[in-house]
């Protein structure tokens, strides 16, 4: 291995030149988009704009799903190229990304965060724990999956789901939203 030390500027320039990090866009399941669009219509959710503001909420996660959410935000997956961005307040959010089982202690805070998000709002349950409590279901301290507290529009399975799987789910949401009469 070479011992040559790259200058920081050379290194930074290389990142700009090569754009090596952001991977290919994952394929999105067409039938899944139609199904999701139909469900959004049936739920009477009005169509949102082409870009979506995402707000992450952790009502009980182990932190594994958060690692992968950070990965989709970062250079390797570069969420911003799809018009998706993270916001710091539920008041600015179109989509709530909820990770982890819902602990009894955080159930009221999760409910309040959802109420603070303006209508229309999507709720995406990310990871096996968010779907039904995962390995933690049945505990005295866990209420269960996100659907014990909020209406869930989309689930993304995995423990944790890979960044590719999370991105695929979010793109499906974007497409389903765009495919509907607005």
């Amino acid at each position: 291995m070479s011992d040559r030390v790259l200058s920081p500027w050379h290194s930074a320039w290389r990142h700009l030149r090569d754009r090596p990090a952001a991977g290919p866009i994952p394929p999105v399941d067409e039938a899944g988009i139609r199904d999701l669009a139909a469900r959004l219509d049936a739920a009477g959710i009005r169509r949102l704009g082409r870009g979506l503001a995402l707000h992450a909420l952790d009502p009980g996660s182990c932190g594994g799903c958060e690692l992968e959410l950070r990965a989709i935000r970062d250079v390797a997956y570069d969420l911003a190229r799809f018009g998706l961005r993270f916001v710091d307040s539920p008041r600015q959010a179109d989509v709530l990304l909820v990770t982890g089982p819902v602990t009894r202690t955080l159930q009221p805070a999760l409910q309040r965060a959802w109420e603070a998000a303006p209508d229309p709002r999507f709720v995406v349950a990310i990871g096996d724990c968010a779907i039904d409590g995962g390995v933690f279901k049945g505990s005295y301290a866990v209420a269960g999956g996100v659907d014990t507290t909020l209406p869930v529009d989309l689930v993304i399975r995995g423990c944790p789901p890979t960044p590719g799987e999370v991105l695929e789910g979010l793109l499906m949401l974007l497409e389903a939203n765009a495919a509907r009469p607005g």
Partner: protein
Amino acid sequence: MSLAAAIRATPGIPCRPWLRHVLSPEQWRALGAEPNLALLAMWGDSHAVHALLREPAGMLAVTVTVADGRYPALSPWRPGARLFERAIHDLWGHAATDATDERPWLDHGRWDVTAPLAARPPSRIGAAPPVTFLAADETLDQVPIGPFAGGIAEAGQFRLFTRGPEIVQMESRLGYLHKGIPALMRGKSPRAASRFAARLAGDASVAHSIAFARAAEAACDTPPPPRALALRAVMAELERIASHLADIDALAQAGGAPLAGTPCQRHREAILRAAQRGFSHRLMMDSVVPGGIATDLAADGEDALRIAIAALGHELPAIARLCEVLARRLDGVAVATPIAAAALATGGPAGRASGADSDLRRSPGYRPYQDLNVSPVREQAGDAAARLLVLLAELRDSARMVRTLLAELPDGEIIAALPQASGEGFGWAEGPRGDIWTWLRLDGGQIANVFLRDPGWLTLPLLEAAMAGTDLSDWAAGRASFGLSHAGMDL
């Protein structure tokens, strides 16, 4: 002869690799007042409270019996005991006499039971006390943060007491993420329960799995095969590299030098993809199991890991140079003095940046690290810049260790069957954020009681101490420099 040595000379209950000594309340209190004894963990049992202590000569596991629901507090002498005593009260119902803080910690009054790990958990009667913060001075302003604080962050509540732009005091309230993991592990075989150890803290999944597996192996007196030990170390160092890269990135974002974070993000992703090829899971969850490892390293995974590590090693000098700008911005931010770190016995990068000589990989007889010459990395300044330098130095060392381990992988079995034994054991591992300890008791091959001690228990009090005197605008960077996992502490 010191008190600890005198206690160690008495007969005790086998708790491999040591003995656990049952003390009288007077001896327990005397231990608390003994200097040179570091308190690493305290946890409950049906009718007792256990503590794990370290002195220069070795480890000491002790127990005091609970009488009329009470036991003598250690917090008047050991500031690190405070959070443990609050948690023991919430989970086992044992109250510490003369404790410095009797407020609840994990129990926010939302469970149907109180003291869920007690022999007979009582139902909850009446409402729990509200969350309270202790202001040192009523004239201070208060900045409330959390439990959901924006960003992609774990839930937790913080209260900053400020005067003008200066943080005078910081207080935390965690426990929001408590999922009842010790209760869920009870009655299960070590193999079934290891899924919970892997999901205590997602960013230290491998390290917690190793500490848990080693405790179960100690209790059963069954060592894992050499190939499993070597591959566990590969996974642990990969996890450390990924975590340190993420922590440097978070520090770069919070410290206003995001350029330093970008290559970290890219290499972290490359390491995780290589881990996926090698161990079939990006975070290597459930790869470490009691008795060994679940699946062997994939043939093409070994090359993927070598390539990812070589690429990182090649760019580390450039990352270090980008971090020079960041380090200057973090100079003097959130200073944790060596005295505070020693009083709390905080380990990990946070402790080592404040002069602590603590790295469990250098503990005697810890294979395969005993042959790897782990570099003792230490700084004395205790500020965010010192913590950054420790992370950078450890990245280099971990990359070197992965290269060495992969070059010298022993052949053979990857798992040994654990007998359906009864017994007690301790296990430990050096996680990315510090020393992890697991204690468990098996009864006929099933877990009767267990405690998983995340490094956060001793890092959070040091973070609180370091925040006193810090500028409010440095709060985010100061906090990021400690790299705390709330889930790991919340159980």
